[in-house]
C-alpha cells in the first residue's frame, strides 16, 4: 500500500504526504478510537472521534494535522462509511478557534524520510523559515485570485456593450470569435467565478493545505477558468472540443484535491465518464467535418461554426443525424444530462466548495452552450424536429432521475448536485423548444442558476466545515447556530426553487411560456410535474436543515454561541444573491444582448 504511494514517480508529491511515518504516533489515535466503536450508533462513533481529535489537539497541535491526514489510512480496515465520517469530524474539530497549525514545510514533501524516526513532522520554527513567506505577506495576497475572474467579467462587459447589432469579432486567425452568445456566457463565467474565487480565501483559511497544495489549487483553478474561456470563445468546433476536454483534465485533480478515498473515487469516475462521453462528441464532430468536406466546404473552414451554420442545408442529412446524436450524448455528458450523468453528484460533492461552485455554476453551462452551437447547425440541416426530440428526451429523463434521487437524498451536497441536473434539464427543455424567446430564457436561466448554485455550494462548504458532516439528518437549526450562514444558504435554495424575486423565477416562466407558444406544452407540463417533485424534496430537506432549535451539546457543555462568519465569508455570497435578484427584477442593459444571443441561436 505505502509502496504504491512512494513508488509512483508520476505523482508529484504522493510520496511525502502519505506513508508509514504519518500513520505512526498520534496519527493512529482517532482512527483507533473510532474503530473501537464499531457496534455503536453512528453519532456515538462520531462523538468519540471528535473527542479523540480534541485530545490530539490539546496534546500537540501539529499532531492534529497529521491525524487528519492519517485518518483515512488508519481507517482503512474499518468500514468505508465510517472512515469518511471520522475524517470529516476530525477535520472540522480542528478548524475553528485553535491556534494556527503551521503549514508543513516543503522539506517534508521533498526530502526522503529516514526510517525509524518521525522526521517528516515539521517543527514550528522550521515551517516559518525563509522559504515559507506566505503567512507574513499582507492580507491582500489571497485576493489576487480575483484578478482573472474580474478580467473575464470585464471582457464580457466590454463585449456586451459592443456586440449587439455589430459583426462578431475574431482573433488568432480563424480560431477565436466573439458573438452575442460568447459575450453572455463570458459574463456568466466571470460573475460566477468572481463569487467562487472571492469565497476561496475564506475556504482555504480553514482548510489549511500545505503551500504546495495551495499553489497547485490556485494554478488549476485559473487554468480551469482559462479553458472555459477558450471553450466559450472558440470559433472552430474542434478547438471547442479540445477546450472542453481540457476542462475535464484540469478539474480532475481539483475534484481529488482532498485525497480521501471518496475523492479519489470521484476523480476517477469523473475523468473516465467525462473523457469517454466527450470522446463521442469528438466522433460526432469528425463526422460533421466529413459531411462538410463532402458538401464542398474547404478544409480550413469545415469546422468553422459560422460557415457550417450558413451552409448547413448542404450537409448530408443521414451523416449529420448520426453526428448530432453523438454530439448531444457527448456534450450532454459534460452538461450533466442523462444518460451519462453518473459522475456529477460524486464530483460535485467531493470537490472543494469553490470548485463545486464553478463546476456546477458554469462548467455545465459552458458545455451546454457548446451543444447549442451544434444545435443551430443541426436545425438548419435537418429541421428543428430532430434536436427537439433528442433534447426533450434527454431533459425529461434527466429531470426524472434528478427528482427521484432528490426525494430520497440524505446528503446536502449531493442534493445540490441533483438540483443542478434538474436546472440543466430545464435549460435543455428551453433549448429543445428552440424559439428565440425560449433560448433567451434558457440563457438567463444559466446565469441565475450559476449565481444561486455558486452561493449554495460556498455556503454548504461552510456548513460542512462547521458541523463536520454532509448528512442532512445531522444538520438542525442552522439558522439559530449560524444566522448569517443559514440565511445565505436558505436564500440560495429559495432562488434555486425558482421563487421570486430571483431570476430563476423569470427564466422558468419564460421557458414554460415559450413552450406553450411553440405548441410543445405537453412536455412542459410533464417537466413541471417532475420539477414540482424536486421542488418539494429540496424545500422539505432545506427546511429541516435550517429550522428548529439547535441540538443541545452532547457532553453537557454550555450552549454554544451562534457562530459568526467574517465579512470575507459573507460578502461574496451576498453579492451573488444580489446579482441574481437584480437579474430577476430587470435584465437592464443586458436585455439587448440576451435578445441578440437568442436570435443568433434561434436562426434569427
Amino acid at each position: 500500500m505505502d509502496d504504491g504511494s512512494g513508488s509512483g514517480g508520476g505523482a508529484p508529491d504522493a510520496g511525502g504526504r502519505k506513508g508509514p511515518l504519518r500513520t505512526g504516533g498520534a496519527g493512529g489515535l482517532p482512527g483507533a478510537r473510532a474503530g473501537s466503536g464499531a457496534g455503536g450508533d453512528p453519532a456515538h462513533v462520531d462523538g468519540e472521534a471528535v473527542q479523540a481529535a480534541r485530545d490530539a489537539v490539546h496534546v500537540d497541535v501539529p499532531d492534529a494535522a497529521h491525524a487528519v491526514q492519517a485518518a483515512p489510512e488508519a481507517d482503512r480496515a474499518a468500514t468505508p462509511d465510517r472512515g469518511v465520517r471520522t475524517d470529516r469530524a476530525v477535520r472540522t474539530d480542528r478548524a475553528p478557534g485553535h491556534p494556527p497549525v503551521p503549514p508543513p514545510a516543503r522539506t517534508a514533501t521533498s526530502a526522503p524520510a529516514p526510517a525509524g524516526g518521525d522526521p517528516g513532522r515539521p517543527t514550528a520554527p522550521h515551517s516559518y523559515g525563509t522559504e515559507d513567506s506566505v503567512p507574513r505577506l499582507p492580507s491582500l495576497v489571497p485576493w489576487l485570485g480575483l484578478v482573472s475572474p474580474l478580467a473575464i467579467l470585464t471582457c464580457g462587459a466590454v463585449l456586451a456593450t459592443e456586440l449587439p447589432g455589430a459583426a462578431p469579432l475574431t482573433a488568432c486567425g480563424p480560431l477565436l470569435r466573439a458573438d452575442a452568445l460568447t459575450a453572455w456566457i463570458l459574463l456568466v463565467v466571470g460573475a460566477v467565478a468572481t463569487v467562487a474565487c472571492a469565497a476561496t480565501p475564506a475556504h482555504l483559511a480553514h482548510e489549511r493545505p500545505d503551500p504546495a497544495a495551495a499553489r497547485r489549487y490556485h494554478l488549476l483553478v485559473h487554468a480551469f477558468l482559462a479553458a472555459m474561456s477558450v471553450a466559450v470563445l472558440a470559433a472552430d468546433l474542434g478547438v471547442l472540443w479540445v477546450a472542453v476536454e481540457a476542462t475535464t483534465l484540469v478539474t480532475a485533480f481539483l475534484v481529488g484535491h482532498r485525497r480521501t478515498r471518496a475523492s479519489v473515487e470521484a476523480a476517477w469516475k469523473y475523468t473516465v465518464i467525462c473523457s469517454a462521453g466527450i470522446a463521442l462528441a469528438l466522433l460526432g464532430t469528425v463526422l460533421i467535418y466529413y459531411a462538410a468536406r463532402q458538401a464542398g466546404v474547404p478544409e480550413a473552414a469545415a469546422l468553422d461554426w459560422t460557415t457550417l451554420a450558413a451552409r448547413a442545408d448542404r450537409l448530408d442529412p443521414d451523416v449529420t443525424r448520426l453526428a448530432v446524436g453523438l454530439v448531444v450524448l457527448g456534450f450532454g455528458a459534460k452538461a450533466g444530462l442523462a444518460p451519462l450523468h453518473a459522475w456529477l453528484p460524486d464530483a460535485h460533492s467531493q470537490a472543494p466548495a469553490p470548485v463545486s461552485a464553478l463546476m456546477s455554476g458554469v462548467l455545465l453551462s459552458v458545455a451546454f452552450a457548446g451543444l447549442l452551437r451544434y444545435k443551430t447547425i443541426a436545425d438548419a440541416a435537418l429541421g428543428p424536429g430532430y434536436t427537439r426530440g433528442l433534447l426533450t428526451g434527454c431533459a425529461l429523463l434527466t429531470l426524472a432521475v434528478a427528482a427521484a434521487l432528490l426525494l430520497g437524498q440524505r446528503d446536502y451536497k449531493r442534493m445540490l448536485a441533483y438540483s443542478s441536473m434538474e436546472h440543466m434539464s430545464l435549460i435543455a427543455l428551453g433549448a429543445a423548444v428552440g424559439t428565440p424567446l425560449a433560448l433567451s430564457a434558457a440563457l438567463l436561466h444559466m446565469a441565475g442558476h450559476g449565481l444561486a448554485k455558486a452561493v449554495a455550494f460556498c455556503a454548504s462548504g461552510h456548513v460542512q466545515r462547521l458541523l463536520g458532516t454532509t448528512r442532512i439528518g445531522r444538520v438542525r437549526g442552522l439558522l439559530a447556530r449560524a444566522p448569517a450562514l443559514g440565511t445565505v444558504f436558505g436564500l440560495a435554495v429559495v432562488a434555486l426553487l425558482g421563487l421570486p424575486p430571483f431570476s430563476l423565477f423569470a427564466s422558468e416562466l419564460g421557458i414554460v411560456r415559450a413552450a406553450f407558444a411553440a405548441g410543445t406544452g405537453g412536455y412542459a407540463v410533464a417537466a413541471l410535474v417532475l420539477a414540482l417533485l424536486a421542488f418539494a424534496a429540496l424545500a422539505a430537506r432545506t427546511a429541516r436543515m435550517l429550522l428548529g432549535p439547535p441540538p443541545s451539546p452532547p457532553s453537557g457543555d454550555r450552549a454554544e454561541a451562534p457562530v459568526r462568519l467574517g465579512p470575507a465569508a459573507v460578502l461574496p455570497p451576498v453579492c451573488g444573491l444580489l446579482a441574481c435578484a437584480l437579474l430577476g427584477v430587470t435584465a437592464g442593459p443586458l436585455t439587448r444582448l440576451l435578445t441578440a444571443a437568442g436570435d443568433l441561436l434561434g436562426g434569427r
Partner: protein
Amino acid sequence: MNDSVFTQLLDLACGAFLLAAVAVLWLRQLTSIVRAFAFQGVALAAVAALLGLREGRGELLAVAAGVGLLRAGALPHLMRRVLAASRPGDGGGRYEEDVSEARETRPLVNVAASLLSAALLTFLAYAVARPLVALDPTPATRALPVALAVVLIGFFTLVTRRRALAQVVGFLLLDNGITATAFLAASGVPLIVELGVSFDVLLAVLVLQILTTRMRAAFGGTGIDDLRELRDR
C-alpha cells in the same frame, strides 16, 4: 502505387487495427493488453501513412509519424510504468509477484462472451456506417465500419473491465477508433485540432496514471469494484 495495391494494403492495416482491438478483449494479462494496444497504434500510423502516400501530402505523413510515436510509443510506455509501479519490490524473486494486480481477473463479461459481443458490435458498426459509406464510396470510406467497430469495442472494454489500467486501454481504444474515423473519412482533421486532441489524450492518460497511483495508495489496489464509497442512500 496503383489502386488495387493501395486498397489491399489499406485493408490489411485496417484489419490489423480491428484485430488488435479484439485481442485486447481476448487477453487477460495486462502487459499483453498494453502490447496489443501498441500494435494497434502501429496499424493506425500505417493507415495514416498509406493515405498520405496516396494523396501525396507530406503533412499527413508527418501526422502519421506523430500518431505512431504517441500511440505506439509514449502511451504504452506510460502504461508500462503504471504496471511496473504496481509490482511489489522484487526482492524475493518472481514468485511473490501480486498476480491479481497484473491480470484482468474478473471482467463483468467473460472472455468468450466478450469475443462474441465484439463480433456483434462489428456487425452493428457496419449497419450504422452505411450512410457514411454511401456518401462517398472510396476504398478509404469503405473501411469506416472498422473504425466505428473499434470505437464500440473500446466502449465495451471501458464498461466491462474492472482494472483501472484495462479501463484506460478501453478509453484509448475509443480514441484510436475516432482518430481512424477521421483519417478514413476525411484524411484527418485540421492540424491544430489533431494537435489539440493528441495533447488532450496524452494529458488524460497522465491524469489517469496519477489517479491510479492514488487509488492504489487509498484502496490498496486498482480494482474498480472497490470504488464503493459514493452512493445515494
